[in-house]
């Protein structure tokens, strides 16, 4: 009886809690706070934060592996996050389902009306690869323990696309997944703070006031054929990007084709919501003190910020470069939207544009490079998976 009481006391968190777990619970609560109070990508950061709290409760066993006896019968069930992480994240299933849903929510119309903006989505990926160099330098210098695979996974934060970052990290650097996902979503939420100073520094008031010609209407047929064209190009040039872009285009085709509205509706609502809840809990399971409380995480957070900033700058500078060669003027602010972070970055471009010219609505123009950035970072992800993993 006293024995049992002692056992019960030994089971309590008060007795078992280690400092690292305590700190990580606080980190989890901080994410919850940022999600609720500051509106930081709450759909992901709230489940991630709660997932981080739960996985760090000592003795709760959220990441416990199931135990089987010799005959294959389960003697001890695993924890919820164990099943979620190994079933949905390690396998890549959840990010791909999310990407399908995002595809079903994406309107490529503005991009199709002005395909040149794809170049802006390409340029903004420079943030990814510049960051890879930064991480590699930190690794080569011995300051931090980054391999090439780690560096590539960290760089993808600059892609400003959550599911892509999680998909790449789960394949190249599962240990860094927690930090990378948190950095990716946090910086996406911070886009309205990170981008405007860079945008103002790199452009003159005249450039920011450039009015762009109205977008031509895009036919339904173009919208239907476009995702198929992307899939075919991916199949021909970069099969390693096919999982991401294939599911993305499948989602988009369901949206645009007009004959499977009930599937498209489910992909955009019930399915993506269910997967988002589990994806968040699963990512949160990687916010354990061993994986997160180290110098590398600081490196990830720092490099991620660099990646965003360089990507933003590269998009703007590409737009200015294009203005040298093109007859139709492009407002360089929309180049910043090339990092993706849909639709936040496009809104920021619109807002900064309105500061210079109250009548200049850039939102639709910025949506082009914005969705192009999603394709761009998926292509970058494919290159990395092929280069590093192959």
């Amino acid at each position, binding site marked *: 009886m006293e024995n049992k009481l002692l056992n019960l006391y030994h089971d309590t968190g008060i007795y078992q809690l280690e400092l690292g777990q305590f700190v990580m619970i606080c980190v989890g609560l901080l994410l919850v706070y940022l999600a609720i109070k500051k509106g930081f990508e709450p759909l992901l950061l709230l489940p991630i934060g709660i997932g981080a709290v739960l996985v760090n409760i000592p003795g709760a066993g959220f990441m416990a592996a199931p135990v089987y006896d010799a005959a294959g019968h389960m003697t001890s069930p695993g924890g919820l996050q164990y099943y979620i992480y190994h079933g949905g994240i390690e396998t890549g299933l959840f990010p791909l389902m999310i990407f399908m849903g995002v595809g079903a929510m994406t309107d490529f119309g503005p991009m199709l009306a002005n395909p040149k903006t794809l170049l802006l989505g390409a340029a903004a990926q420079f943030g990814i690869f510049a960051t890879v160099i930064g991480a590699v330098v930190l690794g080569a210098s011995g300051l931090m323990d980054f391999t090439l695979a780690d560096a590539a996974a960290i760089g993808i934060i600059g892609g400003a696309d959550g599911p892509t970052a999680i998909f790449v990290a789960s394949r190249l650097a599962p240990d860094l997944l927690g930090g990378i996902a948190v950095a990716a979503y946090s910086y996406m939420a911070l886009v309205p703070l990170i981008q405007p100073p860079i945008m103002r520094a790199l452009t003159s008031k005249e450039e920011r006031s450039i009015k762009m010609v109205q977008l031509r*209407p895009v036919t339904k047929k173009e919208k239907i054929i476009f995702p198929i064209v992307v899939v075919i190009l991916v199949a021909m040039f970069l099969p390693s990007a096919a999982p991401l872009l294939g599911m993305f285009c499948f989602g988009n085709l369901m*949206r645009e084709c007009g004959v499977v509205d009930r599937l498209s509706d489910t992909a955009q609502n019930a399915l993506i919501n269910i997967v988002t809840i589990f994806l968040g809990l699963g990512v949160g399971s990687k916010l354990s003190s061993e994986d997160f409380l180290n110098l590398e995480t600081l490196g990830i957070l720092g490099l991620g910020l660099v990646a965003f900033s360089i990507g933003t700058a590269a998009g703007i500078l590409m737009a200015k470069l294009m203005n040298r060669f093109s007859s139709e003027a492009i407002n360089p602010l929309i180049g910043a939207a090339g990092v993706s972070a849909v639709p936040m970055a496009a809104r920021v471009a619109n807002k900064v544009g309105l500061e210079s010219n109250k009548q200049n609505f850039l939102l639709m123009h910025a949506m082009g490079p914005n969705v192009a950035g999603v394709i761009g970072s998926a292509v970058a992800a494919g290159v990395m998976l092929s280069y590093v993993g192959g």
Partner: protein
Amino acid sequence: MNGLLEDGIGLMILGMGFVFLFLVVLIFATGYMSRLLNHLFPEVLVQKAPVTTTRSPAATGVDAQMTAVITAAVHQHRANKKS
């Protein structure tokens, strides 16, 4: 250690090269597709973004049911306002 740095630079060059290559090809492919489609089917324009896809079928059903009723009510409203 130097091998790591070299690999990183290789990844950057290949990566940015490929991203640009892919998206430039996509620009041409998209442009060609659009010209071809608009040449083959000149008039079919999307009048409005397909707003309906974001609504659940159920809600749309409600919509359909009520539109007639509400349209009547609104017309009525306007007619009364004018008179």
